[in-house]
């Protein structure tokens, strides 16, 4: 039973992370691709930070931020009576931040790879920015979109350090498969570790195979 609950928490976290990032990542990637804001490199650097930082660094800062002694934690506790440290919601926020570049970068590259004249042509045909976004830009970055979703999902499933830092290892709440593996190995329970490990391996492998299959198929209708 524990096994299934842990997997449920793992996939719930990955689904929720991916969904939130899809909703926030699309406008952010669009903005990064087309804005002429002077401080854009700063924003780009911030978005990419989780790629290079050890998860423990972000986990540490998240914990500090969640603490009732910080202004944010105090504000949350005072206004909403919410404490985020060692909760699923707390892990989810940390996971969203940590997977941000895996969603935003493929989308950003996708938008950048489209010729500017596609957007401009749509504008001269009287179409608003919103219509252009949904009917011209988004359908033409489908491979990037699929890559972004699959990478974010796979990365969220595989996340270890930040979940451990922020969520601990609470069965049914914050215990995810990657942490369970570590835990089972520590208690020399190799059979259970093997089950978790195999499922994570298989899911990631299938996801990446899907990405490469789709990208290969889409090669033929790139912009000419």
């Amino acid at each position, binding site marked *: 039973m524990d096994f299934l609950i842990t997997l449920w928490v793992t996939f719930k976290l990955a689904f929720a992370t991916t969904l939130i990032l899809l909703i926030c990542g699309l406008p952010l990637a669009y903005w990064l691709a087309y804005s002429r804001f002077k401080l854009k490199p700063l924003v780009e650097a911030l978005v990419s930070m989780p790629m290079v930082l050890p998860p423990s660094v972000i986990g540490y800062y998240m914990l500090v931020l969640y603490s009732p002694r910080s202004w944010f934690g105090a504000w949350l506790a005072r206004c909403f009576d919410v404490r985020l440290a060692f909760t699923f919601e707390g892990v989810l926020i940390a996971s969203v931040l940590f997977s941000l570049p895996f969603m935003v970068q493929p989308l950003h590259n996708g938008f950048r790879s489209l*010729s500017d004249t596609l957007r401009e*042509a749509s*504008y*001269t*045909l*009287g179409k608003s920015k919103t219509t252009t976004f949904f009917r*011209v830009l988004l359908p033409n970055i489908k491979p990037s979109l699929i890559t972004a979703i699959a990478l974010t999902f796979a990365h969220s499933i595989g996340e270890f350090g930040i979940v451990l830092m922020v969520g601990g290892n609470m069965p049914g709440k914050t215990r995810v498969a990657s942490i369970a593996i570590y835990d089972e190995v520590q208690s020399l329970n190799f059979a259970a570790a093997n089950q978790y490990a195999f499922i994570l391996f298989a899911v990631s492998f299938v996801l990446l195979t899907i990405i490469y299959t789709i990208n290969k198929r889409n090669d033929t209708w*790139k912009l*000419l």
Partner: protein
Amino acid sequence: METIVIDIEKDLIGTQGNMTLSIKASIEMGNLVVLFGDSGAGKTTLLRILSGLTKPDKGYISIGNTVWFDSASSINLVPQKRDIGFMFQDYALFPNMTVSENIAFAQKQPDKKQVLELLERFGLDQFASRKPAYLSGGQKQRVALARALARKPQLLLLDEPLSALDASMRITLQDEISKAHAYNGATTLLVSHDLSEVFRLAHKVLKLSDGKVQAYGSPDEVFIDNRISGKVQITGNVVKIDKQDTFYLLTIVTGMNQVLKVTAFQNDVDDLHEGDRVIVYSKAFNPIVIKGR
């Protein structure tokens, strides 16, 4: 008659150094105007400024009674609000849509009949459900032209619409543009490097040089020296200059892709080089060759 008034200035950073685009022109509406000039003269930028995709530094643009741009009173209509059709040099067809979807996307109101009519007019019937990736360059150009026309715009801006076509296709499509213009009545601005295209299509020529208007008028007024009254005038490019005993033999390829052999004397060829544009006049029996402007 209503006119399009253009009076704009914009500093450009180009490949051949910086330049100020400074265009003053008044174009009678309903005309087919060819923008002519060397590359880097500012033709594409002028089209982009008219469409609202590029903002001039200062100036004024109005079409009929509508002001599109006025830096003095901070008016700058977005491209969506300007009633235009723009055909891009790279066609900018939407790769996710089929040929007929590309055309239908451009319409103000969905109108299947008009899509079919445009498909037929441009010989695209059998490609209607193909994606742009599976079209040849010439087919793409026709789709782009059909799409620009689908909105029935007031002003049609065509950036080198026929550059990718071979000679016979070029002439067919020149006729199409001419017909489309007559059918639609839209004022058309067309960028071209090709003199034969100018003479076949243009009511008026706006000749640009280094970002300034060098001449505006009918093709005859702009290109033909009216001090000479020739009976037959042919424009073309010199492709070969052969020295014979006492005279020269020029090989000239005309805009219609005919090859002419013309004799010339030493003083005629003094400042002629291969590649030069020339006008050949036939006066009485002897053709006269002079360097084109």
